[in-house]
């Protein structure tokens, strides 16, 4: 019964966002992407398909992270401000079902976004003579997982701080999560034991988004061992599960004023 209600909330969240025509923007981004790719390939020699893939995956990543950030921050706070949450949880609906439904609904939108842009990117790459290998699918999957992780981060922060701060903190975590590995490699850091400890703690506690970034590998045709792919996939899933638990825990206890 609770599963049904979760899925109902997910369905109507999806419908509400779908009807707001946000995906129309995604479609236009996709069309723009194809045009920009075509223009860019005119200025490159020998590797137009690589340019297409680079642009495509970059736009895919940006748009999915943008959706997570800007729709995610209002996912709960807008519901509370406009009191729509009262209409739902005044019914026999547990709070965790509400939050899960909202997240699943938004991830449905995210899935459509990723699907549209991935198809456009792969079509353009193929059209320009590029090869579609398994690593491209892994990259697209990891972009989806990264956007899920960012969504959970921003929703979690929106339960603790206001919308502007939540977006800023999430962006900061996203950037740090991408550069943490490289930062640890800097010799200045390596020579400083305190900095090493701080960065190790950060690496352990906070989201390491770089683990879900395969774009460089796919562009330079690097092979990746399955252990790397599955290890990072497990990291993404487990970290998302941890964030989800934290979101549910906080929302269960939050005063919905």
């Amino acid at each position, binding site marked *: 019964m609770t599963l*049904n*209600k979760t899925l109902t909330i997910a369905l109507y969240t999806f419908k509400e966002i779908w009807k707001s025509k946000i995906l129309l923007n995604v479609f236009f981004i996709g069309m723009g992407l194809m045009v920009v790719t075509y223009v860019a390939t005119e200025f490159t020699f020998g590797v137009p398909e690589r340019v297409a893939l680079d642009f495509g995956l970059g736009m895919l990543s940006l748009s999915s992270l943008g959706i997570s950030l800007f729709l995610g921050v209002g996912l709960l706070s807008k519901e509370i401000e406009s009191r*729509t949450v009262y*209409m739902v949880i*005044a*019914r026999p609906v547990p709070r965790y079902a509400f939050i899960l439904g909202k997240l699943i609904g938004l991830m449905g939108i995210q899935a459509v976004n990723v699907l549209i842009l991935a198809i456009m990117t792969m079509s353009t790459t193929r059209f320009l003579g590029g090869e579609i290998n398994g690593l491209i699918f892994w990259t697209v999957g990891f972009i989806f997982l990264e956007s899920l992780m960012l969504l959970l981060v921003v929703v979690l922060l929106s339960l603790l701080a206001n919308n502007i701060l939540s977006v800023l903190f999430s962006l900061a975590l996203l950037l740090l999560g991408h550069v943490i590995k490289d930062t640890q490699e800097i010799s200045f850091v390596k020579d400083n034991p305190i900095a090493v400890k701080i960065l190790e703690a950060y690496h352990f506690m906070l989201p390491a988004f770089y683990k879900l970034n395969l774009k460089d590998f796919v562009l330079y045709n690097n092979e990746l061992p399955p252990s790397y792919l599955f290890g990072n996939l497990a990291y993404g899933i487990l970290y998302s599960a941890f964030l989800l638990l934290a979101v549910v825990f906080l929302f269960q206890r939050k005063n919905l004023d």
Partner: protein
Amino acid sequence: MVGFLGANGAGKTTSLKIIMDFIRPTMGEVIFSSVLGTTREEIFRNIGFLPERPYFYQNLTGNDFLLFMGRLTDLDARTVSERVKVWAPRFKIDHALGRELKTYSKGMLQRIGFLATILHEPKIIILDEPLSGLDPIGRKELKDVIVEVHKAGKTVFFSSHIVPDIEEICDRVIFLKNGALAYDGSVSTLMKQAKVQDFTLTVQSPGELPPQVKFKQKLLLAEDLTRFTVSPDQKEVLLNHLVIEKKNIVSLEMMKPSLEEIFYNTRGTNDPQ
């Protein structure tokens, strides 16, 4: 029909939020009657709640929204459709159900919100300031609908800071003052409890009154009429004088205090002594 009355800031909405588990109380507990059920799910299935000035999902149509709300209370699409067919015309909302909610007026939003509230046939309906923000016609229409639902056998718990609304449609009233209960009982008992106040006496050409007659107010009206306001003990003195002088007494009326006057004179338990 129970009116939940209190000035702005008395704690009405906070009490309702605590009852509905939106916020947690710093002390005390909420106890639901076993008539509503024993588990949280049963209890909430038997409650219909409409928040103050709800702002629904803008891009959903009226039909989408009602089906969404119905499904959350385990109703299937057919049952929702049947109930909407019964109630939507009475709520004067049937013509707009295919439109997106962002095109609805405030009154229409309140009416569809109320329809969503009763869709699952709850035993008790809790409305938080349902009439706030509505124009006079919208208020009248929603009041009529609330009365109709009450007549259909539902308990309605209706919070408001506007006393005449409560006086008009409620038979029981709960006053909240400074966060504490100031009165809980029937409207008629409260009206009876109120001290008998002054009388008004309208007389044609009363002439000069003797000094022993003390009146509170004298008002000169058209056609040589004069209206006196007197206390209950002075009423007899004035009447005797007028009868002896064979004056034409046009009317004698007891001035009843309104519920509003009684409400604002009711002492709350938190009031300073």
